[in-house]
């Protein structure tokens, strides 16, 4: 079994780290890179930066933030929000990102997934999906920071995205995001049973122990943590210990 990855997720609006509930009611938390450095020092395995309003305005403000992070954060970084072209992806990778996450533009132009994967490798191309439950065991993919319906069934879209070249899935439950109610395990499991690529479970982590069901029942390869870290309810170390106590294999990490 591969080591489960603990990923700190930083939602960005303009220069600020923000957090909402169900991707709405965005509240400013502080400086993204002060938080990034803290999570790096706590032993996060990766960082995800998402510019949650970039798609709405057709802009991308992440390049500067990622370049700043590259000075003192030395773990893999995934960057998403407002990426519309191979050129946008190229720019962010040059800024120090290791992977790019695409949602809205991939729904509009699925061929973009293939273009990015061919150019940089599938491991660079993360398909970001914001999922809202519409019936028992049925979810619809949303775009533009959880605002726009696509009519796409999440499972169908995941399978299509992987066949087009997505090397990883960032799966956000809009219903749970920011609610602290725990992950949507049935959503995670529905996706992990359908595709062979790694799935990052995002949305809903309320306490360190929530990682256990996401991994053991949902079979998530990684969990994204935001609210729980930003408000100091737990450290990455607390979550690592909760995983280890449940027998989940994580990176061996001893803080300096």
């Amino acid at each position, binding site marked *: 079994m591969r080591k489960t*990855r603990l990923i700190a997720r930083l939602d960005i609006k303009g220069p600020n780290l923000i957090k909402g509930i169900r991707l709405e009611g965005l509240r400013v938390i502080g400086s993204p890179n002060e938080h990034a450095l803290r999570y790096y020092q706590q032993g996060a395995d990766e960082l995800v930066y998402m510019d949650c309003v970039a798609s709405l305005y057709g802009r991308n403000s992440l390049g500067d933030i990622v*370049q700043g992070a*590259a000075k003192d954060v*030395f773990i893999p970084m995934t960057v998403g929000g407002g990426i519309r072209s191979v050129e946008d992806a190229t720019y962010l*990778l*040059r800024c120090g990102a290791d992977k790019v996450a695409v949602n809205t533009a991939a729904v509009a132009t699925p061929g973009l997934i293939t273009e990015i994967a061919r150019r940089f490798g599938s491991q660079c191309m993360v398909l970001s999906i914001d999922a809202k439950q519409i019936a028992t065991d049925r979810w619809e993919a949303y775009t533009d920071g959880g605002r726009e319906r696509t009519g796409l069934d999440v499972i169908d879209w995941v399978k299509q995205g992987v066949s087009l070249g997505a090397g990883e899935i960032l799966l956000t439950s809009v219903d749970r995001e920011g609610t602290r109610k725990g992950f949507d395990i049935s959503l995670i499991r529905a996706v992990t049973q359908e595709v062979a690529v790694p799935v990052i479970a995002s949305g809903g982590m309320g306490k360190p122990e929530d990682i256990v069901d996401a991994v053991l029942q949902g079979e998530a390869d990684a969990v994204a943590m935001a609210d729980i870290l930003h408000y100091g309810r737990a450290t990455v170390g607390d979550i690592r210990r909760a995983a280890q106590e449940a027998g989940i294999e994580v990176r*061996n990490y001893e803080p300096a």
Partner: protein
Amino acid sequence: MSRPEVTVIDYGVGNILSVRRALEHCGATVTVTADPDAILSSPRVVLPGVGAFADGMAGLCRLGLDAILREVAARGTPLLGICLGMQMLLDESDEFGVTAGLGLILGRVVPVPSTSVGGNPQKIPHIGWNALVLPQERENWDGTLLQEIKPGEAVYFVHSFMASPADPRHRIADCLYGGIRVSAFIGRDNVFGSQFHPEKSGEVGLSVLRRFLAPKF
């Protein structure tokens, strides 16, 4: 004490910024260049790289840097290849047909096996954090660039091909992928290769760069 100097070779492949920032964080003055004279006069050289072997070698050869890197190695200048830069140190690669490498470390570059020791299919590329272990014939990492690392500490990998050095003494560290030994760090005299990304492997990775920047190692 003055800051150690290091030259990072820019031959049009991949993300150099992260390598540069990591070296700077470790106290180095970094020059990013493809200029042969600057490379030859540098006290240490880093060869980064991601992507396909043939593209990487073509990029070096187009700039005449294959011969320059052999000269760097022959002069005894410390040379560290990272990821594709490590693989190019070997004699040749099987990636998309056989392509000659720099020939600085005896051996070949072969695919990471897509079947585990137990016969199960495993994902390629090999991506993620994996623990460094001692190769079969090595007892410790004393006196190597890994000397601050304890066996079992994890570093970050992204690769589909792996180096297979002909001389087991050149294997400094391995990792296990599906039970199969994958060479993670190799070295011969002043020439070193890291399959993992020291610039993306937290403090463990930075410790390798700090050793590389040290006046003596």
